[in-house]
């Protein structure tokens, strides 16, 4: 059996096991719930361990897809079950498997319908891993959509006050994008001869000129893909579903949403838009960068005025993912590497931020910044960890956020894309703004006088919460200190993608001369 | 008939019209005296005298009745649906009368006494007038026309007769009439099935739907090879006698259905006086009532004619080959036999209950007819 296949479907098998477990329901709800929690935790941990094996086997000096499995699936269409990992996906897979146990730990307090909750979590994990490892467009689309349903239920059933609204909004936005992408996939399939959905093959065909797509059609197809992914990212102005979804989702939902699901968008941009439509991507780059910068600043500004901590974090995601898009469309090694790195960093730190908000919410059942103040006194451990996380998120050097943002800004500055320097400068403004809103929030929540007496009696983190939080913090620090460990893994593939877009280095020089 | 429409010429029309008038008068007289006969025979059965004042033995009674009907006040009740109320008797009578164009009264090419002379005269006359007709009256066919689908035509027309009754019942706007009309139409529709299916057995023997042809086929054995004796088409020899079995069964089914179809005792529920006053024609009087009355008797005649033609050899009988003019006499004699049968039954049998009637029709007669068809088909296959 292929390792990747095992990793992908292990959670699903776990879900089935969970169902089987529930058949011998003794009637003791509490014991049963605990059983489900531990079982799920175990499954996700095992998945994580297996994914580490993948990491161990992964050869970072090879740009092509590795550990590939390719079996015919739907013969009449030429659809294959084709999975593998390369530089783009390896870390995202690890991120997913790493965040899942933490998400499970974060949902220990869920008491409503635990079995179903855990089921959906596990199905979600399969979907997410599947998205990152698929090397067949059809398969990709399938997994892309599969992630939708569990997330929809997670928000809709276990979410907050306005969960129904948020769930529907989330679902409809995503489906709109993905169906357009489906049309584009079909179109590419036909332009490629109507025989294969294989991403690798199609990329090769397009790059070698074997498959020619007319220019105007390319634009439409590019737009269809981009729309799907930009909604997922979410890039300004498609971001409106995100705050709702984040705020209403349960803590674990938010962690996964911010940590992994959003990355599916940026991953898709790199996987499809750039290699498939290099010329359109080049033309669109300034626009995308522009939108990204607007997103960065807009997200930051809106985050600043949020009275709700979770919403603040949500808008900070808009801002941070703007950086990622910026980096992707910089078409430089640094920029794109930075983008990938920022994806990981954002997954870790924002996940941690949501976890932190969730912890405090469990105690106070409010997330209003105004309801807190001075809680560093009763909760020293919590405050420390949260502070580190916030700092990593705002890009303090030696923490993970800094590396990503720095690389992106560097890459953007050196980018051949028109107006790139201006965008870099504006994006740098976003970095400052993020420091403002995060620190301001920290100041209002953790420091100062305790104004409300409920806050004085808050308990500090318990063992489970520490267990969930510490790995994230550790990783944030490790990523900040030893970035090359991570960057090396994606280096080759990123360079390949960059070359797909703007050709070999000689061509870059030409572009420079044009300017 | 299509040949009739497409190749119509004036002499043909004229000839047909003359025949129609003659036949019509014949039927009318038959009906009138059937009524008279009914009253007298019933009287005999019931040990009384019956009408015997108008004319010798009351023989002019029908005409007296007719005059009475014509001069009676024509009452149209207030609440009736006027147009339909007036139309109903006509709807009832017209289809009944239309059937008579296919009655086979006698053999084809009957030598007409004095025909030679008539032919000569008419042809000469019209030549002088410049019309140039070419008429042949040396012999006549005692039927107006013959149809490829004669029997179907008869069923079609008698089927239309039901509307007269239904419409009368509906238009009268009275509950007795309505109930009578409903019952009557239900009964007629139900028994029409038995009637038509019983005929199928005969059609299997005949192989045609042309009534005149069917009668002609029965002229073997010196005019005695009637269908109830096995008919001709079943081939020669005694084998053909086997066909008599289904034919006789069919004959009885036909007879019962025919009585029901014409709403006669013992199936006269639609006009059961004791229950429904008089059924669909409760509100009718004078000439309109007379029309219904005539229609009923014309229908009786029609089914009798059919029975005669289909089962009893029509105009066939002994010595028919020697004396062709015996044909119409045999024919009318057989028809009168059936009419007498009607009266006889009325005098002897009590009326059935409505559910008995329906059950009998659907649960006995119809299956029996179907079974009989199967039997006939089997025998036909074996005999041929």
């Amino acid at each position, binding site marked *: 059996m292929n390792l990747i296949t095992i990793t992908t479907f292990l959670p699903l098998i776990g879900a089935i096991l969970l169902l089987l477990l529930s058949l011998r329901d003794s009637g003791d709800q509490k014991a049963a719930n605990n059983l489900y929690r531990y079982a799920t935790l175990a499954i996700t941990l095992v998945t994580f361990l297996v994914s580490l094996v993948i990491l161990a086997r992964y050869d970072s000096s090879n740009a092509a897809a590795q550990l590939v499995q390719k079996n015919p699936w739907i013969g009449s269409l030429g659809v294959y079950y084709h999975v593998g990992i390369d530089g783009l996906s390896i870390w995202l897979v690890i991120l997913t498997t790493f965040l899942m146990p933490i998400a499970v730990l974060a949902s220990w307090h869920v008491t409503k319908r635990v079995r179903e909750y855990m089921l959906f979590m596990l199905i979600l994990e399969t979907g997410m891993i599947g998205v990152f490892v698929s090397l067949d467009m059809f398969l990709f689309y399938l997994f892309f959509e*599969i992630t939708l349903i569990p997330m929809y239920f997670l928000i809709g*059933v276990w979410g907050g006050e306005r969960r129904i609204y948020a769930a529907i909004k989330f679902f*409809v936005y995503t*489906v709109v994008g993905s169906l357009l992408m489906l049309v584009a996939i*079909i179109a590419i399939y036909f332009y490629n001869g109507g025989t294969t959905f294989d991403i690798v093959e199609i990329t090769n065909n397009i790059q070698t000129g074997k498959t020619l797509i007319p220019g105007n059609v390319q634009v439409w197809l590019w737009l269809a893909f981009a729309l799907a992914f930009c909604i997922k990212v979410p890039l300004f102005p498609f971001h409106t579903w995100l705050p709702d979804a984040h705020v209403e989702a349960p803590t674990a939902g938010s962690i996964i949403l911010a940590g992994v699901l959003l990355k599916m968008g940026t991953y898709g941009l790199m996987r499809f838009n750039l290699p498939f439509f290099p010329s359109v991507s080049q033309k669109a780059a300034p626009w995308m960068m522009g939108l990204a910068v607007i997103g960065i600043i807009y997200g930051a500004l809106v985050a600043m005025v949020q009275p709700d901590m979770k919403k603040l974090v949500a808008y900070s995601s808009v801002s941070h993912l703007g950086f990622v898009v910026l980096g992707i469309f910089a078409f430089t090694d640094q920029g794109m590497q930075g983008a990938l790195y920022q994806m990981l960093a954002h997954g870790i730190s924002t996940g941690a931020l949501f976890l932190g908000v969730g912890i405090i919410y469990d105690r106070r059942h409010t997330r209003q910044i105004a309801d807190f103040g001075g809680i560093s006194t009763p909760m020293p451990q919590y405050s420390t960890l949260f502070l580190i996380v916030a700092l990593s998120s705002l890009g303090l050097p030696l923490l993970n956020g800094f590396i990503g943002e720095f690389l992106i800004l560097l890459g953007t500055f050196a980018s051949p894309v028109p107006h790139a320097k201006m965008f870099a400068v504006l994006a740098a403004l976003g970095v400052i703004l993020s420091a403002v809103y995060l620190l301001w929030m920290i100041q209002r929540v953790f420091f100062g006088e305790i104004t409300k007496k409920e806050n004085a009696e808050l308990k500090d983190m318990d063992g489970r919460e520490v267990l969930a939080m510490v790995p994230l913090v550790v990783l944030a620090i490790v990523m900040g200190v030893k970035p090359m460990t991570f960057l090396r893994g994606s280096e080759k593939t990123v360079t390949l993608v960059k070359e797909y877009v703007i050709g070999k280095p000689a061509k870059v020089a030409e572009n420079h001369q044009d300017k | 008939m299509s040949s009739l429409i497409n190749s119509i010429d004036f002499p043909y029309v004229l000839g047909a019209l003359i025949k129609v008038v003659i036949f019509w008068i014949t039927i009318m007289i038959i009906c009138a005296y059937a009524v008279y006969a009914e009253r007298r025979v019933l009287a005999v059965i019931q040990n009384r005298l019956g009408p015997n004042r108008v004319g010798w033995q009351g023989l002019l009674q029908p005409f007296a009745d007719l005059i009475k009907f014509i001069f009676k006040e024509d009452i149209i009740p207030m609440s009736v649906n006027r147009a339909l109320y007036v139309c109903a008797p006509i709807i009832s009578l017209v289809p009944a009368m239309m059937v008579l164009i296919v009655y086979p009264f006698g053999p084809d090419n009957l030598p007409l006494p004095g025909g030679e002379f008539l032919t000569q005269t008419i042809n000469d006359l019209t030549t002088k007038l410049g019309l140039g007709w070419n008429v042949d009256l040396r012999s006549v066919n005692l039927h107006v026309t013959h149809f490829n689908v004669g029997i179907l035509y008869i069923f079609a027309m008698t089927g239309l007769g039901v509307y007269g009754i239904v419409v009368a019942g509906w238009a009268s706007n009275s509950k007795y009439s309505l109930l009578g009309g409903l019952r009557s139409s239900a009964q007629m529709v139900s028994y029409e099935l038995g009637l038509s299916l019983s005929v199928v057995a005969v059609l299997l023997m005949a192989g045609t739907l042309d009534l005149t042809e069917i009668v002609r086929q029965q002229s073997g054995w010196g005019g005695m090879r009637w269908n109830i004796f096995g008919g001709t088409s079943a081939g020669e020899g005694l084998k053909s006698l086997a066909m008599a079995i289904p034919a006789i069964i069919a004959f009885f089914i036909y007879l019962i259905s025919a009585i029901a179809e014409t709403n006669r005792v013992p199936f006269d529920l639609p006009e059961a006086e004791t229950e429904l006053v008089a059924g669909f024609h409760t509100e009718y009087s004078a000439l309109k009532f007379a029309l219904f009355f005539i229609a009923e008797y014309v229908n009786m005649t029609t089914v009798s004619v059919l029975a005669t033609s289909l089962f009893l050899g029509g105009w066939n009988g002994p010595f028919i080959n020697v004396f062709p003019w015996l044909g119409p006499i045999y024919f009318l004699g057989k028809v009168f036999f059936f009419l007498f049968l009607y009266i006889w039954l009325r005098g002897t049998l009590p009326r059935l209950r409505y559910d008995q009637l329906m059950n009998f029709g659907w649960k006995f007669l119809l299956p029996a007819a179907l079974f009989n068809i199967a039997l006939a088909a089997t025998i036909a296959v074996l005999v041929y």
Partner: protein
Amino acid sequence: MQLTSLNLNYAAIAPESIVSVAAVVIMLVDAFSKKGARKINAGITLVSLVLALIAVFGLNSAGRGSYFSGMIVVDPIRVFFSVTILIVSIAVTLLASQFLRDEALPPGEFFALILFATAGMLLLAGAGDLVTVFLGLEIASITTYVMAGYRRYDTRASESSLKYFLLGSFATAFLLYGMSLVYGATATTNLTAINQAIAEGKVQFPALLMIGAALMLVGFGFKIASAPFHLWTPDVYEGAPTIVTGFMGTAPKVAVFAAFLHTFAEGFNAGGPLGSQLHHVWVTAVAIIAALTMTIGNIVALSQKNIKRMLAYSSIAHAGYALVGFVTSEAAPVGFYLLVYSLMSVGAFAVIQLLARAGDQKVEAADYAGIGFQTPALSFSLAIFLFSLAGIPPTAGFMSKFFIFKSAWDGAPTLRWLVVVAVINSIISVYYYLYPIVVMFFRPLAPGFVKPRVSTMTAVALALALIGTLYLGILPNRVMSSIGRSGTANTALVQPASK
């Protein structure tokens, strides 16, 4: 004419015969057994349907071709569509037992009617002549009229039945008029002969052929409830007993589509100048009808609060999707789509049948509030069926839509806008398919909820539909290839006239 030249082949009508005979047997059993012989009746029905299914698979042994002087054909379209019809019938039979018991309705007639309807639909699916198309259609339709009014005491059912009947007969008249004109123009009612007549330029009255085809399109349009002939659908679906709605929303449509394929995609798909003109006209018309149907179905469905009504509009929309596949005259995607649609639709109606309680008392979406976790098996099944209807992977609904869109995009380059319209419609449809799920899972429990009972037979039927929906969503290959290339309409004669 000698009987031998008629090409009598009883194997070719074996499925229809089996089913019809079984219907008669049921009537006899019902007449001679005590009240409540439900189990025997259901058993006979099931056995005969399964036998018919086997007979359908055995059709290939009769050999591809036409029999009974061209009245009936054996080809992949027939086989595949017949299988779909029989699967639906089997599922409905399984579901009917509980329905009939819970509502104390006479079982004998119901099963007999199902069988008669199935016989009609099978005939329709195999029709090779306009007259068999007409007869099959009528047998199937008239039976469903009766089934729609099966709850005689219920005014809504009777009304539904009446409306269905009137509009159905109205449509029949159009279809028939079209057939008569086609007959007049081509001097034959045999579909192959019609094709030949058109191809060889032997059509005496081309104008009449055009009008005839148009009227037939109207007739078929009515029967598959495509816009603008769809007005009957919602009322009829809402008023009929849910299980009957499930039946008549799927199986007759499948059968009509088979006949539609035989007549239009094969009969009216001939070469020659007239043939290509005709082909162009009807394909364009079908494309417009498809676009209208999807759009109207989906948009009106958005505002529905009654689940049966919503599903009725959704079924209109789905007829539109199937029509999208129709423009290429390719049978395989349409057949697969209809199979999938039947499975998920019957499944959805089955769940609603259970949730709506006996007598269909709870069909408003609000009645379903919060029941999601009270009856998780039923609710999640319904959710899966709804996701499938919405076309979300990995359900079969997605796969079937994918095949349809792909086929249309590939086969009709001038009609690619249709695919875009279809995709936009899929997006719209997501919204209302989510609604019941939202209500069931995200809302608090409505008072007065009673846990429905599920009989074993019902459970089996549901499981069948569920497994089918998921199986076809993940592994469509086998089924798809069984219609595959050979199912492409009009193999022998002429290529479609599309440029």
